[in-house]
């Protein structure tokens, strides 16, 4: 297990290096740090002097190493628009996105597991057919369309729920949270339903197909033969083994989730990372854009490594395969 852990961490670091290299290349090719600092109204000679002073005329590789050194210490440059360190801007916006993702994950977990199990146990039942039919329709509806329709129905027509923003926030040690006020929760409902709507069908289908496969295995047949109660077989014996692949896929799907936060946050003008990213694209704020890519890269690599490690912990065959 120790060797496995080390290898996975080394792989993660390698991926992170590649990501940082790509990010630096992008910044080098399209960004202009001089403009980010002084604006466009400064003479060419002064700019050139500043370029020299900042080391922008150095060879590409030595600039990259300097970029990497700074990035490790948490300095990825100044945002052109906010006139603040890019990482600070991102950390300031992060809680909004994290709360949205958290609430959506809770919705997904509490709906997909019961429905998935139900469809696996009664595959021929009319209700399971309806659920499976709905799930393929759900996969085909883009998340932004769901979001717009929710806004139209629940805020424009019925006036039940607010359509944009985060509402009243409570400050808990620097973390601006909307989870503790009624207004904050009301603002959270529509975005989190929209965000979970796109992932739900996927998880229902995944849990169903996994569970159906498990129910065909020998040990389940043996459990039936032993005369165990059906609930015990379904929820304890079969469900445990269903959960494993679901955790792995769930970890990997985090990427899709972050992509969809960009769309959801744009529709609801949710002041989180995705909205920040689109604003950065519109304002050509290259430093902020690159910083966002780096932060998302770190989140990915960390989550994927942790998922791999958990998987290795519960399923030893993966570890043995990895040594070859």
């Amino acid at each position, binding site marked *: 297990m120790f060797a496995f852990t080390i290898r996975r961490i080394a792989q993660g670091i390698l991926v992170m290096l590649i990501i940082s290299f790509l990010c630096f290349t992008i910044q080098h090719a399209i960004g202009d740090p001089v403009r980010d600092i002084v604006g466009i109204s400064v003479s060419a000679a002064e700019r050139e002097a500043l370029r020299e002073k900042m080391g922008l005329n150095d060879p590409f590789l030595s600039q990259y190493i300097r970029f990497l050194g700074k990035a490790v210490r948490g300095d990825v440059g100044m945002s052109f628009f906010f006139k603040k360190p890019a990482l600070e801007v991102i950390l300031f916006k992060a809680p909004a996105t994290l709360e949205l993702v958290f609430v959506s994950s809770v919705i997904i977990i509490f709906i997909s597991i019961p429905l998935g199990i139900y469809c696996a146990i009664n595959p021929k039942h009319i209700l399971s057919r309806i659920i499976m039919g709905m799930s393929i329709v759900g996969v085909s509806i883009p998340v932004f369309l769901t979001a717009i*329709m929710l806004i139209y129905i629940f805020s424009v027509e019925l006036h039940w729920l607010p359509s944009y923003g985060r509402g009243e926030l409570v400050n808990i040690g620097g973390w601006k949270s909307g989870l503790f006020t009624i207004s904050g929760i009301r603002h959270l409902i529509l975005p989190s339903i929209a965000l979970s709507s796109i992932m739900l069908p996927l998880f229902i289908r995944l849990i169903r197909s996994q569970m159906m496969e498990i129910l065909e295995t020998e040990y389940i047949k043996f459990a039936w033969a032993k005369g165990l109660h059906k609930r015990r077989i379904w929820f304890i014996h079969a469900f445990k083994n269903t959960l494993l692949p679901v955790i792995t896929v769930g970890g990997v799907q985090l*990427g899709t989730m972050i992509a969809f936060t960009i769309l959801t946050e*744009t529709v609801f003008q949710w002041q989180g990372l995705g909205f920040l990213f689109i604003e950065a694209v519109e304002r050509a704020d290259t430093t902020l854009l690159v910083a966002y890519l780096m932060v998302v890269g770190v989140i*990915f690599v960390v989550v994927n490594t942790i998922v791999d490690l958990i998987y290795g912990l519960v399923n030893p065959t993966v570890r043995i395969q990895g040594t070859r």
Partner: protein
Amino acid sequence: MGTLARIRQSYILYSFVRDWVAITCFIVVCILILISFLSPFIAPHNPYESASINVMNAETPPMWMEGGSSEFILGTDSQGRDLFSTLLFGMRISIIIGCCAVILQAFLGVIIGLVSGYIGGRLDSFLMRMADVQLSFSTMMVAIFLGAIFQAAFGVAMYERFAVVLLVFIIGLAEWPQYARTVRASVLAEKQKEYVEAARVIGLNSARIMLRHILPNTLSPVLVISTVQVANAIMSEAALSFLGLGMPVTRPSLGSLINSGFEFIFSGSWWITLFPGIFLVLLILVINLLGDWLRDVLNPKLYKG
């Protein structure tokens, strides 16, 4: 046996005529493709011709509602364009981008998958590791990033001018790993078989073995994922256009139409968003259903319902 008789006796046709879902989906796809490609002839107005557009007509509701006119069947958008015509033209762009992007990603993916599976070793582990990393970032994410980077690099005006080509490029680059993995998996299985051994013994070179002998045997899974990938590509294009990283409002695709309608939903003009949305969902849904059916027919092993 003639080609016609072979088609008539094939298993695909046999299961096709017995599956009403597949038949319905096939008909709907055909109708959608037909009306979108015939749009210059059947659309009542030409949305690209600025002379025929009158801003006074903006936000006219559909004809069956109060204030609607029979001239505009589904109403007009925020600029006074006939929504039905704009929608048909937009669907044509969406379909073209979707198909071209799939051709590009299939081309990239098949070549990388073939080489990676046949040659193996270091190259294989490098290419597959790259595919893994890209897949773990999710194709939608990679497409959005590429779009953002391209827009920053080219500038907005340039980006809008070459939007179709750039979108094909972006979506193609973002989604090749799907193909590469599928092709590699079947290449690994085919490589063990005797006919490949025989071809090698005759002294054929690797390129010929790969392209003429192995490739034809790996095509059925490629066909299966291609259908679903077209739906994915159309979805990605819509998402990019919705974010403002895709087709400009002057030449809207379904995604950019939804985006331009979104601003007007608060004033009650729901039709600008709803109708393109319905067509988009219908298009993606029927392609997905066809893809599912094709997978079940061509690859019974994969059948999981």
